[in-house]
């Protein structure tokens, strides 16, 4: 007889299926890098981009294929469940839309594409892995893969000092934050003797919680809090978003964030992290408030949306304060929020990157004056994304906020809900300012508006359909999220969570 441990250690065929999206995306990424020197430089932009886009489509198909065989892989390091599938599909979709947006942008900015598309694909590999890894060390590695790609992407406007600053700032602070995360992992290992999330959860339930565990949780939260731009770890966001290329901002404000939230969901809920309540409560309240207040005074659209993304991280964090019985509704609300935020924000940045023009010259609020007249279609599209960011009915942003606050009220977090709803009303002001600029003022200077190319049009249409779909027929996505929530929870509390489903009082 062979050693059962050894058998377990040898990867089976199905193990590779369970990381198939990562494999496919990596292959396409390598292909892009390999072809980069071979294709004609003039046309390489489009060709490489199309290959990368095909890569995301193949990755999407691979995700579907992976979804057919859920389970553990590679000695229990990777876990394919509907939760992982959800986030795989989300980050790959974001990447696809961002790649479509980038065709035109790279040409207009005269940036040689080359490894740009490869980096997006590699980043997605890391993010996908973040959502399916159940091993803290693997999560750390995945986090690094995704982060390093985004550090470089942030500096892709090489001629611009602001972009270099953005990249460097992101890199320095980001490495610092990942170190915090790693430190937390180490302490968690010290406290529980394991880096496997499920095992940690079991051991924490079995024994009284040590102080070390609290410290470990706090450190991990610092690391992930940085990645999702939650206050008080948000200071980097405006500068980095301002300098980075606009499509990249659309990418990094959604995809890595969604992945980091996926990790946070696993860490918080699968471990059932002790002592997290006030930590997250305060971070959520601070993020919402500081994000919205900061955005009120911005005149640069990218900075404005940077602060808005801090605020949205805050709304999302509200879902993380759920405990015990309400965990399931918290998880599904967070997943739904991540998806609709991605749809509207990627869309908004697609408009911004088109409008910014060469050298990103037109990114202040003033430049948007009279856009409703000069380019009615573009303005109307941006308006829908902004309305969704405000949280107006018929858009995904509305349901996202609605589910989060609904879960919070159910968990009796009345004060946090009040802070949240007041914040979302205050937040309406600065999104409205952009709408005011576009429709209610006349252009004072001539800002050229170029026709919308096909790739961008497709990207905009996709984000718009997603935003409206989530706003009018949220049922499908929500039910999938609710299903996933059940798989994420440790077995003990999942039975409790089932009784938590809304039942009419007899």
């Amino acid at each position, binding site marked *: 007889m062979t050693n059962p441990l050894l058998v377990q250690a040898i990867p089976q065929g199905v193990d590779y299926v369970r990381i198939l999206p990562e494999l496919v995306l990596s292959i396409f990424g390598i292909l892009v890098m390999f072809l980069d020197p071979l294709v004609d430089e003039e046309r390489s932009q489009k060709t490489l981009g199309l290959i990368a886009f095909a890569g995301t489509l193949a990755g999407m198909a691979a995700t579907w294929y992976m979804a057919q065989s859920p389970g553990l892989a590679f000695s229990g390091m990777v876990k394919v469940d509907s939760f992982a599938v959800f986030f795989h599909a989300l980050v790959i979709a974001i990447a696809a839309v961002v790649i479509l947006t980038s065709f035109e942008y790279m040409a207009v900015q005269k940036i040689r594409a080359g490894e740009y598309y490869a980096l997006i694909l590699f980043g997605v590999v890391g993010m996908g892995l973040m959502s399916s890894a159940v091993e803290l060390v693997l999560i750390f590695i995945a986090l690094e893969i995704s982060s390093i790609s985004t550090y470089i992407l942030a500096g892709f406007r090489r001629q611009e000092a602001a972009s270099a600053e953005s990249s460097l700032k992101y890199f320095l602070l980001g490495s610092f934050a990942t170190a915090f995360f790693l430190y937390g992992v180490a302490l968690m290992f010290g406290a529980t003797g394991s880096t496997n999330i499920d095992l940690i959860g079991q051991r924490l339930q079995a024994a009284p919680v040590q102080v070390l565990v609290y410290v470990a949780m706090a450190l991990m939260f610092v690391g992930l809090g940085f990645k999702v731009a939650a206050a008080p770890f948000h200071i980097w966001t405006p500068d980095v978003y301002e300098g980075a290329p606009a499509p990249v901002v659309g990418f990094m404000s959604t995809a890595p964030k969604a992945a980091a939230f996926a990790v946070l969901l696993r860490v918080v809920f699968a471990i059932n992290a002790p002592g997290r309540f006030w930590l997250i409560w305060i971070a959520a309240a601070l993020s919402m408030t500081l994000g919205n207040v900061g955005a009120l005074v911005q005149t640069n659209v990218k900075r404005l949306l940077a602060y808005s993304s801090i605020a949205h991280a805050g709304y999302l964090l509200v879902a993380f304060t759920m405990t015990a019985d309400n965990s399931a509704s918290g998880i599904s609300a967070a997943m739904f929020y991540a998806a609709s935020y991605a749809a509207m924000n990627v869309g908004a940045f697609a408009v911004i990157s088109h409008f910014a023009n060469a050298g990103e010259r037109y990114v202040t609020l003033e430049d948007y004056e009279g856009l*409703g*007249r000069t380019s*009615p279609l573009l303005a109307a599209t941006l308006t829908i994304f902004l*309305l969704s960011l405000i949280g*107006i*009915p*018929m858009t995904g942003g*509305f349901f996202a906020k*609605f*589910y989060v*606050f*609904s879960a*919070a*009220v*159910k968990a*009796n977090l*009345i004060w946090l*809900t*009040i802070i949240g*709803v*007041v914040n*979302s*009303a*205050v937040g*309406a*002001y600065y999104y*409205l*300012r952009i*709408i*005011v600029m576009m*429709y*209610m*003022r006349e252009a004072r200077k001539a800002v050229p508006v170029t026709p919308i190319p096909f790739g961008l049009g497709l990207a905009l249409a996709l984000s718009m359909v997603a935003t409206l779909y989530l706003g009018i027929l*949220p*049922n499908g996505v*929500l*039910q999938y999220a*609710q299903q996933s929530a059940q798989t994420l929870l440790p077995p003990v509390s999942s039975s409790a969570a089932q009784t938590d*489903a*809304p*039942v*009419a*009082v*007899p």
Partner: protein
Amino acid sequence: MNTDNLSPYILTLVTFAPLAGALLLVLLPRRDRDIRIFALVVSILTFMFSLHLPVHFRRGQAGFQFAIDRQWISTPNIHYHMAIDGISLWLVVLTTFLTPLCVLISWKSVHDRVKEFFILLLIMETALIGVFTSLDLFLFYFFWEATLIPMALLIGVFGHERKVYAAVKFFMYTMIASVFMLAAILWLYANTGSFDFVTIHDLIASGKVPAFSAATQWLFLGFFVAFAVKVPLFPFHTWLPDAHVEAPTAGSVLLAGVLLKMGTYGMLRFNLGLFPEASRHNAPWIMVLALIGIVYGALVAMVQPNMKKLIAYSSVSHLGFVVLGIFSFTQLGLDGAMFVMLAHGISTGGLFMLAGILHERRHTYEISEFGGLASTMPIYAASYLFIVLASVGLPLLNGFIGEFLVLSGAFQARAIYGILAATGVIWSAGYLLWMYQRVFYGKVTHSVNNSLQDLLGFEKAAVWPCAAAALVMGVAPILWLSAIDPAVQAALTPFTELASKVVGQ
């Protein structure tokens, strides 16, 4: 309940017909004339559809009719539940009645971005009707918020000089207030598992909602703040004059005619319907605020040099009557409140149209710019007088019935309230007639006014229906009250029970 041959789809048709029209309008080429005609046809068709409602409405019955109830989202448990009773019936018809008039009055005055204007106007109509027809709290909130954007854009894009300031102020005021309602709705859902108005109403009435008694005051306030800002009740009224003065005429008409009624409708439906005890408990200070609104609105209207601002402040005063009537908890008071809502919608809508017509010709609302217009614009002056008299509350016109009923109700509740509110009637006669005298009588003081054109055909078509409606409502109020009465009675049942409980103790 027997609902045979009451079609469940008619409400959906009425609600979404304008939206469908708006979507078709998007596809239409930018030929302004075609767009205007198309918008007019859509709005008139919607009005025709909506006439189905009062014709087939069972007047003796108190409950909801034409109900449609389908599941929309499974968790959370959100339904597409629409139905109307005697309270919402007339508000729906008021909306569909005013919209074609708004299209007509904007025929010439809107000449830039015509397509966008009519798209917004039609979307607005759908949202407004939806507010009155939806019985699912979620759906209600959905439409409630949906009214904000088109209105803010109508003001901000098509308004006058300080339009941006007015639009943003309007948006922020109402948005901030309504999130408190959202919080209250979420609380109700968390503790009842339902967004359905009828279900929640029954659960509350039978005392089966956990922790309700501790939260009821906060819930009441959550809803009330949202509605009070919309009404607007003193001291939340400061957005209103700005919004009105800057809004285009059609925007003002819908704003005063329908949008403000969303607030009073909400109070009647949700505050009284869901929280009868808290309503009773809070009634004293609310009635005082309503009284202050009546008198203060009238006094401020008196000194306005700007015609549109004067009408705006008169709205504050009139809506004070509505709130006073609602919180008198008497049959007469509530009947009157409903009637004032409708009458105010028609006469103030008419006044705003007339003011807009004058602005079209002189590009100013300043009263001092006019004088002696009766000789240069006789038809206009006569129409204006008719609407002013309706608004003042001349017997046999619509304003009189409503105010009379409200005052009787207020007397029953507390005599001093009735007496104080009655002074409001005098004030309103004062400021409106004084304004009329300054604008129309005497000699023509500015020579430009000598050459002003009298009412044009489409303007007559917009204003005269208002005058006709004011007359019919004044002569035969029973047509309206016969539907309102049973619904109001049903709304008051918990209050008579409460009162008898108090007496019995």
